[in-house]
């Protein structure tokens, strides 16, 4: 699965994207798995309410299933316009 980071999430984790092999069933489980890895992930995912997630390029929720998903993206609330 490709996991992509944007804005300060990318800066805290220190890379724009990475391939992750996971058994996580949902986005929330993937987040827990990442937070347990290293301090930089813990720093990025400390406050989930400050984050948004897209699953296969569609805005989604943290309880979304990861079944057959190819790409998950984490980022702060968008500031377009």
């Amino acid at each position, binding site marked *: 699965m490709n996991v*992509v980071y*944007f*804005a*300060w999430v*990318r800066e805290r984790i220190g890379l724009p994207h990475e391939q992750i092999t996971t058994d996580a069933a949902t986005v929330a489980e993937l987040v827990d798995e990442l937070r347990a890895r290293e301090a930089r992930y813990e720093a990025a995912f400390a406050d989930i309410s400050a984050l948004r997630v*897209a699953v296969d*390029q*569609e*805005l989604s929720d943290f309880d979304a299933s990861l079944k057959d998903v190819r*790409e998950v*993206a984490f*980022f*702060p*609330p*968008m*500031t*377009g*316009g």
Partner: protein
Amino acid sequence: MDIRVQQERFDAGAELNGFDPNGAGAVVTFTGLVRDVAGGLEEMLIEHYPAMTEKALREIAAEAEARWQLSNVLVIHRFGSLQPDEPIMMVATASRHRDAAFEAATFLMDYLKSRAPFWKKETTATGENWVESTVKDEEALKRW
């Protein structure tokens, strides 16, 4: 419908003149410009999610076309490094009815603000700062 995600600067006036209202009498545009900030803005850097951005903009524009009688819609949004006073983005709507053109343009802006995958970072003499979304911008979506 014309949707463009680009790094290059665009000419808002030329876009307005090139926007075909297809016989409609009312054309509304919104142009967003880089504002200077306290301390002096050295750069606004706009990051985006290339695999998602154009699709997200198309979905927002399609939703506007579903809600209002529009004869044309334009959305241009830039990414990359921008300087104060440069245009960031532009929307244009055309309709037989001025209210439809105004409302659709307002709707597009509300959704672009909070639902299109762009993130802005401002650099001043004192450092870098990711622009934060506001409660007001999120609340604005509820009017639709």
